[in-house]
């Protein structure tokens, strides 16, 4: 079965067009979080971290909710599927559109974090921890995206959102116990450990696997209602 990438592009642009305000809103909240993070006080640091994590998590789950669950609940899927669109093209467009909607604010926030860490009072040594955390959120997002796309179930989507978010705290604790991270947290020198490389690599491979598995599963579907 051939895939018409022009059709996929039209569907991605449609989702981008429909959700521009959401993306702008999350970028705005991200900028607010970065501004607070850069403020030279301990409370601002913690508050900024919490805001940025919340924004990244919310941006992803909001995108999944409105583009996949929302389209099903609002019964716009039959409208799209009545157009000359193959089920796989629809699924592929959903994956790409979701990644774009999530990764645009995510990238803006990551760039801001790197810039702030390297240019302000924030210890440069914490940057590897920040980046590992950001990649963890991408992996969590991709898992929930795949589950939602395949199951088309709000219940399963929420269940996995809860599970991956519960997993964030133990991940932070375990990572901070690792000497490769905790011994450099307050250092003014940027440090990048092999452990960080391994963790990021594993998470990025898992991210790709989740997405490819979801796409392959959807490629076998003949219909999408």
């Amino acid at each position: 079965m051939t895939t018409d990438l022009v059709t996929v592009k039209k569907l991605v642009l449609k989702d981008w067009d429909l959700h521009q305000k959401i993306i702008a809103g999350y970028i705005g909240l991200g900028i607010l979080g970065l501004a607070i993070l850069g403020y030279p006080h301990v409370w601002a640091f913690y508050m900024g971290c919490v805001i940025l994590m919340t924004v990244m998590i919310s941006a992803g789950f909001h995108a999944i909710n409105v583009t996949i669950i929302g389209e099903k609940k609002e019964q716009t899927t039959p409208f799209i599927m009545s157009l000359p669109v193959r089920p796989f093209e629809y699924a592929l467009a959903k994956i790409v559109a979701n990644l774009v909607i999530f990764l645009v604010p995510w990238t803006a926030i990551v760039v801001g974090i790197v810039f702030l860490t390297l240019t302000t009072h924030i210890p440069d040594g914490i940057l590897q921890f920040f980046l590992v955390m950001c990649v963890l959120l991408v992996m969590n997002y991709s898992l929930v995206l795949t589950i939602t796309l395949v199951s088309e179930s709000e219940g399963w989507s929420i269940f996995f959102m809860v599970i991956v978010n519960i997993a964030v705290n133990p991940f932070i604790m375990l990572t901070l116990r690792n000497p490769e991270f905790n011994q450099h947290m307050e250092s003014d020198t940027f440090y990048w450990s092999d452990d960080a490389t391994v963790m990021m690599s594993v998470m990025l491979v898992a991210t790709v696997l989740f997405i490819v598995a979801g796409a392959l599963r959807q490629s076998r579907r003949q219909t999408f209602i």
Partner: protein
Amino acid sequence: MANVIEMSGVAKTYQHFSLDHIDLTLPAGEIMGLVGVNGAGKSTTLRILMGLIAQDSGSVRVLGHALPDEQVAAKRDIGFASEDMRLYRHKDLQWHMGFMQSFFPTWDQSYAKHLAAKFDLALDQNLKGFSHGQRVKASLLLLLARRPGLLILDEPTTGLDPVARSEVIEELAEVLTDENRSVLFSSHNTHDVEQLSDTLTFLHDGRVLASENIEDFLDKWRCVRCKGDLAEGDLLPPNVAEMRRSGSLVNLKVDNFGEPSLQMLRDKGLEVVEVMRMTLEEIFIANVKRGRLQ
């Protein structure tokens, strides 16, 4: 004349409903009304014809394309609107028209604007502010302006107020004057079907009860009023779909009506008082009641 729709032995099973080996053909240029009560299988049939759901067994060809495998080729020339299909609430009609135009080179912008004016639809108003009738008209505008060769409409007039209903029927009637366009539309309103269709298919409980030209239906069915002592349990000819006693009279709904039918009734000792033509709605109800007994 080639068939634009060919369904053969199509079955689809859900937990509480099955479509039972449907055979259906629609010749090019013909308008067919698919009539059935809620849950008869009309929407499932139409969704299979659009490739939106896949049949469990049987073959489906639409515009010469096998479904669901060749759904993209088929959908290029099908205009589909369904009662439970929604447009994007936070976008206006102009946005939807642009979106449709990007998919269909045949999009006729001037016709779209003509329809918008005729249906009194604002192009720059978000659809969340539209009434149900306006949303139905907007859906019709979006599919008609593509000028498709085949229209598949699932309950296009359901939930419309009388004025909106009349406007939609009027526009559809105008569109249907194009002899190259074929239409299959479902409804539980026989009045709408009678106004628009050439042929009629009764669907009940996932089965096709009857499929014929509307004139043939009207010619074949009669309500026969008789006098006599026919008991409820008496064996009636198989073409008597319904019997109801009313005082000393017996009312019979008879399919394949003709002189032999009258003779059979006389043979049973009944005196035929009156023979009346039936409306499509009465024929539909008689078909459904007979279908329930089968």
